[in-house]
């Protein structure tokens, strides 16, 4: 096969996988076609499930698979794909980086379209550098920390990083901008603007989300994403070469690749076109030794060489290739780093002593200790949540739980019969429940309490039963007691005072969300009482 054809096959594959990634990201929402047959709904509660395999890109990610096995000791459904990628890597090196990885494709595009460097600049930038070791450092650090029970992988795993950045920052950011324009048009007195606004929103909302989406600390996620993209201006595919822990993992397996770059130094005219085109800084020039752990099999060098001095060939039986350039100091340093990170990460006492009252995990979440072994902070649960209640944490879960999901009840609430978050969690940190299991067990995510100083009837400021009205359990977990109180003017007023029944409260937070005392509602949900934790229960049985 000609080199040109290989390059085009690669581009096509990259484009397909990137498009599929974005489409699956968009489909990670309450299904559009949720119109169920109500004759079935008449007899039983039905679960709404997603129609597309939105976790596919997480399932083909060997790093997520490996760290989940190491830390959580579980074989997660669907991760046979990841194993398949590992096996293929043994034969074809880091083809995943060159052909499949959507984040890699974005970097490739950033470096390829309008490159920042030219001539000698790009030749210098594409030389293999010692700092390409850092990715191994990050990989070993994550593996060591996973072994000790804190799985930080999702912070820098390319699938989790890309999904989180796009779904929590880029898409909602664009969506907010567009929605502001539509709202402005809707307020106009010109009829055609109203019409465009309405039609436009109908088209745009399914992609960017309904209403104004909010994700705490999304600005940080967005800025980091931009910085990582702009690093491609310093060196092409900076992330893939220097930072990506998945790239490092696959690089190690590339040691045995049977697909190899063969060099014919006598044909070489030292034109250095191969280096100019190289994406991985993998030393394609015939007078240097090829770096299989850095090569992403983009076939650019093969295509660029005018003299046929280099060529990709399958060599059988396999020989052991040049080992990845890791170095003892990197291994030792990263081990020390990983071990200390996981030990220091538990020093805030949130796992072993008491958790933060504001840390409310999605329904079906594992106990905190196991949760942190599996959660990839990918943002899938946050993206899919129809009420926008699930947010990435900043400090609520401590350093160890940075960007893990947390329910912020002033921003949304957990719908009583909704189980979407658990149905999409790629690693099972949030278990997949049915609506029936969620209601009948019941799965409690916290408990509500009333602040009598702010509550309207309790403080004598007037009638209000909004929390009771919205309480979804049957019988209701909020009950009212009739009372005659004194208004601030000294008049007697008949009010109904709300009380929380802890036996019935599931902590869904709709009371907090709907309370007329905004910002800091008079009824609030805290994590105490959550059924996932034995230590955090309140009642005896």
């Amino acid at each position, binding site marked *: 096969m000609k080199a040109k054809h290989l390059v085009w096959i690669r581009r096509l594959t990259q484009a397909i996988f990137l498009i599929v990634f974005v489409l699956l990201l968009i489909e990670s929402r309450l299904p559009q076609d949720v119109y169920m047959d109500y004759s079935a709904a008449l007899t039983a509660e039905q679960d709404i499930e997603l129609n597309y395999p939105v976790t596919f890109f997480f399932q083909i990610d060997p790093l997520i698979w490996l760290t989940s096995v190491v830390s959580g000791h579980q074989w997660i459904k669907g991760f046979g794909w990841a194993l398949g990628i590992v096996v293929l890597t043994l034969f074809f090196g880091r083809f995943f980086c060159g052909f499949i990885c959507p984040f890699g494709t974005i970097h490739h595009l950033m470096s390829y379209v309008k490159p920042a460097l030219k001539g000698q600049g790009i030749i210098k930038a594409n030389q293999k550098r010692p700092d390409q070791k850092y990715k191994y450092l990050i990989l070993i650090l994550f593996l060591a920390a996973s072994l000790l029970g804190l799985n930080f992988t999702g912070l820098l795993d390319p699938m989790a990083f890309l999904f989180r950045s796009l779904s929590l920052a880029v898409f909602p950011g664009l969506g907010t901008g567009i929605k502001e324009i539509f*709202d402005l048009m809707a307020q106009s007195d010109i009829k055609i603007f109203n019409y465009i606004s309405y039609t436009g929103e109908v088209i745009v909302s399914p992609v960017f989300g309904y*209403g104004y989406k909010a994700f705490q600390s999304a600005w940080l996620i967005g800025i980091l994403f931009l910085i990582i993209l702009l690093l491609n201006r310093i060196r092409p595919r900076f992330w893939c070469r220097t930072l990506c822990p998945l790239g490092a993992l696959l690089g190690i397996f590339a040691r045995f690749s049977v697909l190899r770059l063969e060099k014919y130094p006598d044909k070489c005219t030292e034109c250095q076109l191969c280096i100019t085109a190289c994406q991985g800084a993998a030393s394609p020039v015939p007078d240097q030794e090829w770096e299989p752990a850095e090569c992403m099999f983009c076939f650019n060098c093969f295509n660029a060489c005018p003299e046929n001095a280099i060529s990709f060939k399958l060599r059988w039986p396999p020989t052991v290739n040049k080992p990845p350039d890791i170095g003892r100091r990197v291994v030792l340093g990263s081990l020390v780093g990983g071990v200390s990170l996981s030990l220091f990460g538990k020093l805030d006492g949130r796992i072993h002593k008491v958790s933060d009252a504001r840390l409310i995990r999605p329904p079906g979440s594992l106990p905190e200790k196991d949760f942190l072994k599996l959660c990839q902070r990918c943002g899938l649960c946050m993206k899919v949540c129809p009420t926008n209640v699930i947010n990435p944490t900043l400090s609520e879960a401590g350093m160890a739980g940075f960007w893990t999901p947390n329910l912020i009840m002033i921003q949304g609430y957990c719908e009583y019969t909704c189980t979407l978050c658990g149905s999409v969690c790629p690693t099972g940190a949030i278990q997949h429940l049915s609506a029936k299991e969620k209601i009948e067990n019941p799965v409690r995510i916290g408990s509500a309490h009333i602040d009598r100083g702010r509550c309207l009837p309790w403080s004598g400021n007037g009638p209000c039963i909004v929390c009771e009205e919205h309480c979804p359990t*049957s*019988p209701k977990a909020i009950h009212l007691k009739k009372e005659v109180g004194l208004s601030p003017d000294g008049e007697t007023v008949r009010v109904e005072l709300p009380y929380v029944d802890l036996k019935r409260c599931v902590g869904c937070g709709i009371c907090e969300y709907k309370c007329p005392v905004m910002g800091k509602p008079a009824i609030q949900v805290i994590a105490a009482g959550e059924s996932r934790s034995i230590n955090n229960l309140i009642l005896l049985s």
Partner: protein
Amino acid sequence: MDNHHITRRESIKKLLKISGGLALTNLAAWPLPKDLIASPASTNEKFVVEGIGQSHGYAIKALIRKVFEAAGGIEKFVSRQDVVAVKPNISWARAPHLAATTHPEVLEAVIELCQEAGAKKVVVADHTIHDARRCFAITGAGMVAKKTGADLVYPRSSLMREMKLQGHRLNVWPVFVPLIEADKLINLPIAKVHVLSGLTLGMKNWIGAVGGRRNALHQDIHMTVVDLAQFFKPTLTLIDAIRIMVHNGPSGGSASDVSVSNRLILSNDPVAADAKAATLFDIRPEDIGFIHLGNKWGLGTYEFQKIRHNKVII
């Protein structure tokens, strides 16, 4: 078209039916005084029609048709080329059998009637409490919209427009636009108990037709409900009391909260409709604050016995 050939016997039967029917109506019409004939045709006359489904396994749709026929036919209220807005109560993401939301068959039947009357477009709109897409799915409203081709509007902030209500309690409030832009408005609530207002019926259904700080309305629920009902003034109110929620309202959530009543109440008087429905709960209408206030401020009458009062049983 079906390819069924009409036999001679059938055609004779049909002819007899048509001619006989015509003859009967003529016969019936002829000896009666003129004003009695004319009265059902006038839209201003107040009426309450109560439909009761007594036979086992009766069709809800058939009952609705009967109820509308008794009221003078849908054509009396919906003209050709009208845009009709229907306001069901689909506020909760609850399955229909839990009686937290308007029964999908009721919704479907009303949409079909409007379409048969030649409505240009039927718009279904409710500003839901739970996430609207989940409500559309689980209440069956989405399915109905898909089946009938009615326009099910997703409540969005750009569709809430501040309007002067000029009520006794509420002055300016954001209103759900599709409900006020239509030519005809049909209120399609479900009857439920409610801890603060006593009952959730037709007038209270208008809380689902506005935006803004709805959770503050509870501080003066009866007056605000009447203000909203006065602003929206529906052409018709059809209260779904096929199943009524008698405990744990308005959200319910358990089949034990539901009682089967097999009734529908249709009226062009919002207060009379609610008053009639209140009796299903063994509550005196005047004891419900908003019914009392609605009567007081001239929105309608709770003495439904004093207006034309029909009963349809199938």
